[in-house]
C-alpha cells in the first residue's frame, strides 16, 4: 500500500511542480500571448464541453486510430516479408530508404493532390509517418528469430500460418511493440499537422482556429487537451504492452537473477 502511494507520488510530483511554476510565473502576466494559467483553465472549462469533444476531439482520435491501425498492419506485413525473404529485401530496401527520408509533413500537399481534403488524406498522412518505425522494428525482430526455436518448429511440422503466428510474430513481438510505441507519438504529431493544413474539424484545426482569431487562452487550453490525450494514449498503450508482452518481461526478469 505504501509502495503504491509512493509510486503515485513520484508519478505526479513533477507534473504538479511544473504546473505550480506555470501558475506562479504567469499569475500577474499582462502579456497577451501568455495569459495567466487561471485564465487558461477557465477557458478550458468553457471550451471543452461534451459537444466540442464530440465535434473536434472524436474525429481526430478516430483518424489517428484508423491511420495507426493501418500503419501497424502494413508495417508488420511488409516487415515480415522483408525480414523473411532476402530477395524482397534487396529489391525493396533502396526504395524504402528513399521514402523514409522524406518528412511526412512535406507529403501533406502531395497527398492532398490525389486524396483530397477529407479524412482519407489525414489518415494517409498518419500512415506515411507511423509505418516506418513499425516496419523497421518488425524487420529486425523477424530476422532475430532464434535458430533453435526455428529448428524445433520445423522438426515438429509447425509450418505455414501456424509458424507465422506462433513463432515469427510472437518472437518479434517485443520489437514490433517498440516500433508501435515510437509510431504512436509520431501519429499524434501527424494527426495535428494534417488538420492544420485543410480541415473543418479536429483538434489541430480548432487550435489553429483559436490562434487565428486571437482567442489565446482557448488556444492554450487546446494544447492542454493535446497533452492530456497523449497521456491517455500512452497509458492505454502501456496496458496493451503489459498484456501482450507479459511473457517477455517475465523472461527478462528471470534471466537477470541467476
Amino acid at each position, binding site marked *: 500500500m505504501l509502495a503504491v502511494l509512493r509510486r503515485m507520488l513520484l508519478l505526479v510530483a513533477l507534473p504538479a511542480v511544473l504546473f505550480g511554476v506555470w501558475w506562479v510565473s504567469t499569475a500577474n502576466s499582462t502579456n497577451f500571448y501568455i495569459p495567466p494559467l487561471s485564465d487558461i483553465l477557465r477557458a478550458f472549462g468553457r471550451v471543452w464541453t461534451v459537444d466540442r469533444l464530440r465535434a473536434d476531439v472524436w474525429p481526430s482520435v478516430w483518424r489517428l486510430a484508423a491511420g495507426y491501425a493501418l500503419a501497424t498492419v502494413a508495417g508488420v506485413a511488409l516487415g515480415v516479408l522483408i525480414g523473411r525473404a532476402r530477395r524482397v529485401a534487396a529489391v525493396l530496401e533502396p526504395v524504402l530508404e528513399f521514402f523514409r527520408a522524406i518528412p511526412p509533413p512535406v507529403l501533406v500537399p502531395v497527398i492532398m493532390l490525389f486524396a483530397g481534403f477529407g479524412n482519407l488524406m489525414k489518415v494517409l498522412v498518419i500512415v506515411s509517418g507511423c509505418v516506418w518505425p513499425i516496419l523497421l522494428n518488425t524487420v529486425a525482430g523477424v530476422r532475430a528469430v532464434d535458430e533453435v526455436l526455428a529448428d524445433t518448429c520445423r522438426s515438429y511440422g*509447425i509450418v505455414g500460418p501456424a509458424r507465422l503466428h506462433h513463432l515469427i510474430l510472437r518472437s518479434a513481438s517485443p520489437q514490433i511493440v517498440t516500433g508501435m510505441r515510437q509510431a504512436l507519438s509520431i501519429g499524434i504529431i501527424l494527426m495535428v499537422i494534417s488538420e492544420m493544413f485543410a480541415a473543418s474539424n479536429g483538434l489541430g484545426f480548432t487550435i489553429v482556429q483559436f490562434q487565428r482569431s486571437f482567442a489565446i487562452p482557448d488556444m492554450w487550453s487546446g494544447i492542454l487537451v493535446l497533452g492530456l490525450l497523449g497521456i491517455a494514449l500512452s497509458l492505454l498503450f502501456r496496458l496493451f504492452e503489459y498484456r501482450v508482452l507479459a511473457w517477455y518481461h517475465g523472461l527478462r526478469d528471470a534471466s537477470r537473477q541467476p
Partner: protein
Amino acid sequence: MLDVRGVQKVYAGRRRQVEAIRDLTFTIAAGELVCLVGPSGCGKTTLLKCMAGLLTPTAGEVRLQGKKVTGPPPGTAVVFQEYGRSLFPWMSVRDNVELPLRQKVAKARRAALVDQALESVGLAGTQNAYPWQLSGGMQQRVAIARAVAYQPQVLLMDEPFAAVDAQTRADLEDLIRQLWHQLKVTILFVTHDIDEAVYLGQRVIVLSSSPTVVQEQLTVDLPDERDQLHTRSDPRFTQLRSHVYEQIQAAKQGSQVPPLLTA
C-alpha cells in the same frame, strides 16, 4: 529402421570449406537405444541435424524405414541441448507440449496426451507455468514431454543434459531409460559424456575427430535393468567406459584402439 549411409557434410564458407563429417555409415534398429559419442567439435550436432532432416548432407543419405530423409520426417521428434531456446517462452508449459499436436490430433485426445506426457516426466501440476519460471532440469523435462506427447517412432536427442547439474542429470538419464522401456521408441542419444553414453545405451557409436568417421561401434553388454548406484560400480561398466575413453583419446590423435572383447 534408421540407416545412415556414407553421409558427408561440408559447410561452404565464403573463403574456405569446412568438412564437418567425412563419411559416416551405421544403422539403428527399431526400438534400439543408441548413444553417439565423440570428441568435441566432431560434428555430432551436424549429424543429428542431417538425421532429423534439418540439414541436407553434401553426400550420402539418411533413410528412415527405407525412405530417404529429405525434410523433417513426421514420426521423428528432436530434443535439443538448449532447452531455454527450444521452448516457446510466450507459451505455458501446456501450450508448449500441445502445439505440435494441433495439426494432427483432435482436441479432446490432445488434452489427454499432454496430461499423460507431463505426468510421465514428473511435471504434473506445472501446466500453467511459463518455461522460464522452471529450473533448467524441469525445462528440459518439458521438452522431453513435448517429444513424448508427439508419439514419435524415432527420438533424436542432441546432448540434452549437457547444461543441467549432475544430480538432475542422473535423474533425467533414468527418465530416458524408463520412457524408452515404456514407449518402445527408437532413440539416438548424442552426448560428449562417456559415462552417460555407456550408462544409457545398448550400443555406443564412437566417432573420430574431424574429419569424422565412425571410430568404433560397441555393444554395451550390461544388464537391461540399470540404476545409478549399481550399474556405475559394475566392473564391466568401468571396463567399457575406459575403453570408450581410450578410443576417444586415440581418435584425437588419429589412431585407433583394438576393439574390446565382448563377454
